[in-house]
Structures are given as C-alpha cells and as structure tokens.
C-alpha cells in the first residue's frame, strides 16, 4: 500500500518536484552501483538519470521477461514487480543532472 501510494505520488507533477530531493523508492539506490550518477564516469552501463520513465519501464519489463538479452539485467529485473519498476523509473526520471 505504501509502495502504491509512493508511485502514485511520484507520477503526479507535484510528486516530481518532491522526487528530486526525496529518498529513492526501494531498490533504486542500488541501481547506481552500476549505472553511474556522475556524468564523468566512463562505463558501458548507460546512465539512468533524467531518462524517460516509460523507456526505463519498457526495458526493465523486457529484461524481466527475457525478451531483451542481457548479461546481468535479466537477473536483476526479476527481483522487482511492475509497480516497483514504475516507482524506480519515475524517480530516476525526476532526477536532474
């Protein structure tokens, strides 16, 4: 229930402003172990900050179903349900560079 409330909040316009400074939804903080927050890191893993949430959701669902091949993201995406993925995507989308 809390999670649903959270994602609903994040998807509204008012939510976006809050998401900029607010604590990340469950799991989101761990993505940045591989997807750099800082622009200056040279890594083949693409950055997630400021990405269109719908694209991140689509990629995650494709990793989860196996439709999109991956070295690691299939194993990670399977740990999240669609609501959780939406909340994470919304939060990253709301982060400014």
């Amino acid at each position, binding site marked *: *229930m*809390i999670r649903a*409330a*959270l994602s609903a*909040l994040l998807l509204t316009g008012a939510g976006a402003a*809050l998401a900029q*400074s*607010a*604590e*990340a939804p*469950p*799991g989101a*903080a*761990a*993505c*940045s*172990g*591989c*997807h*750099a*927050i*800082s622009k*200056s*890191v*040279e*890594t*083949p*893993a693409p950055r997630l900050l400021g990405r269109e949430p719908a694209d991140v959701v689509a990629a995650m669902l494709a990793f989860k179903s196996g439709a999109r091949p991956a*070295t*690691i993201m299939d*194993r*990670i*995406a*399977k*740990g*999240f349900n669609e609501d*959780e993925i939406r909340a994470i995507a919304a939060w990253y989308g709301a982060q400014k560079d």
Partner: protein
Amino acid sequence: MTDRRTSRRDALKWLGGAAGSALAAPALAQGAAGTVIVIGGGFGGAGCARALKKLNPALSVTLIEANAVFTACPFSNGVIAGLRDLKEQQFGYEGIARDGVKMIFQAAAGVDPQARNVTLADGTRLAYDRLVLSPGIDLRWDALPGYTEAASERMPHAWKAGAQTLLLRRQLESMEDGGLVVMSAPANPFRCPPGPYERASLIAYYLKTKKPKSKLIVLDAKDAFSKQRLFQNAWKELYPAHLEWVSLSAGGKVTAADAAGLTLTTDFGSHKGAVVNVIPPQKAGAIAALAGAADRTGWCPVEPVAFTSTLQPGIHVIGDAAVMGAMPKSAFSANAQAKVCAAAIVRLLAGTAPAEPRLINTCYSVVAPDYGITVAGVYKPNNGVLVDVEGAGGVSPLEAPASTRAQEAAYAEGWFKTIGAETFG
C-alpha cells in the same frame, strides 16, 4: 537533538496510523537536524556519510577514518597479477569533504553506546545521536596456529589492500620459473566469497604467461564456493596445468602455518611453497567488538530494515562487519546497504519509520583479462533477516560465448569506476 525517545516500535505505529504518508511528512521534507558519526571510510562508511549529507544537508555528519587514502580491495587481485597499478585502487576523501562531511583522520578507539559518544585515539570525545559502524574486517591472528601478524610479512594475506598487495606481487615477480605458489582459503563467512577464486585465476594467468613452469595449489577449508562451476569450467579451459584446487574433503583445510619454512600443514600432509598466500579467518573490525556490537562469532547481528545493531541501541552496522543474511560481504553490498542505512537514519531522526528496503548485490570476478563472470542477488527483509527475492539473481550462464565473457569483463571495469565515484565522489 536526540531521537532516543522514539523507539522503532513507536515509529512503526506512527507509520501505520498515518496511512503511508511518511514521504510527505514535513519533518522529512525539511530535514530534521541531528548528529551522525560514521566510523570507517570504506565502501560502506564513506558511501553512507555522503548519502546522509545528500539526503539531509541539515545533518551534522562526521566520518572517522584511520587513513587519509583509501586502498580498495576490488580489482586488487589484478594488481597482484601485474595487470594494474596500486594507484588505480586508491581514493582520497576530498569529494566527501566537499559534500559537507566532516573528516577526522584518526582511529576511533572506543564507543560508549549508553552515553552515545565515540573516543578517538587522541582521547577526544564526540557525541552522536546515531552511530554507523562500517569498519570492515580484521584478520584473526589467533585462528590459525603459526599465522601471526609477523608471519604475514613472509606469507602475505593481501586481504586488506595496500602494502600486503604489493608484497605478494613482488614475491610472485621475484619467484623463479618453476616455483610452487600455495594459497589457502578460509571457511565461511569471510570478506568477498568469490575473491580467493578470482585471485587464484589471476595468479594462474600470471604464471601461464610469465612463469609457465610454475603452478598454484589452492588449499581450501570448504567443499563448495561462490560461482564454483563457472570458476572450475574456466580453470579447465584456461589453466589446466597451472591451477590445482584441493577441497576440504580432499584434505585442503590448513591447520598450521610455518612462516620460516614457507609451509602450510593440512590434515593430509604439508605444502611448501616458493610463495605462500594465506587468506586467514576473519571477524568484524575491532571497533565493533569494543562498541559491544559484535557477538561471539566476531560479527555484528543487525535487523534488516535500518541495520541497527540488535545488541546496542543507536548503533547501525553495515558492510563486511555485519551479519546480513543472504547478502554476501562485498563492496557492492556495503555500498547498497550504506544508502539504505542513510535513508533510514534520516527518517529515524525525523521520527518516522524507515521504509522496507530492497537491495541488490552483484559480484563481478575476472578469471582472465577478457573473461568476466558474475553472481547477483536481490534481497528483502523477511522474518528478521535479508533473504533472496525468489526468482531473481543467480550466476552467469555456464555455457556462453567468449564475447559474453568479454562483455562481463568490460562491465566489471565499468562497475569499479562507478562504485568508486558513487562512494568517494
């Protein structure tokens, strides 16, 4: 200010009553002030201090670290094999200080959990509202007869990166072609479960390319280890003549070390090496026991939401020092726990309940410069411990083309750069 009167149970009750509006709570949005001290500026502690300041700039955050330069263990096996420079392992704390964290370069000598203060090596006393311990590991010099700190100058452990890493590298470099390398791996739990096997792989790589008449024997106190089949398949393929693994049941458990004779004794015999690398049993960094946060096993039990000690009030333990259920002791884990812990502390100081966390770990291992493998997991609290989220995680495929292994090796390097920047700025 202090949150001492807000018990976890009260906070949870509060969350229930407020129907999940915790995020919108004014105290959290504005950031309630408070004083947090973090001991240990490694992947857990440095990451936590930064995250705390980022989540709530109003907090006073102090990071106590014994060394002005941090030397990272991940990828240090590459240094041993001559593939990297130790400098690439090193990080300063300028970025963290720039974020507004107060740095103190001293060892913490004691913690009084009742009075809530930390005593530094120079006797200074610092008060806190909440304390985070991320002291990493200490080696147990009492666990393997003959393996003392002095013995490690002849038989390096290289399980804390720095001078020991370079010592092992120099010993391999000065060994004659044909010399035998002996390594011992400990029983669980220990820092970086796949670490000994990555090291074995890269030493074998070094031998194969530089000392082809030499060989490595790994004496193991276990029959099973992380990513075992992936490692063993790779060894068969890449290092059939250069690496031999001796399991516990085949007599691999080392029972004594003789530094003068460069010999390790097992129940089945003894192994004299030209170079001997002992990875000894470990425990939480000493300050954890001094704070009363370590139990008889030498590690620190914590609850799985905010990682508060189950032994001492007001203390959180993260990283290698803590017992984290299904999560392995890795830099990736420590960093993920650091961010969860920081968010939980911000909430606790604001009088609200921490959110139920979801964590990820991924351990990359490189068995050759262009051959990477991984084990991953997603974790959540369940019945007081962190457990695997079912259906997620697991290891790289057993059968995969060389191009996949090469991709994972490239992602491994990318991960190290990312986690370095994430932790140290």
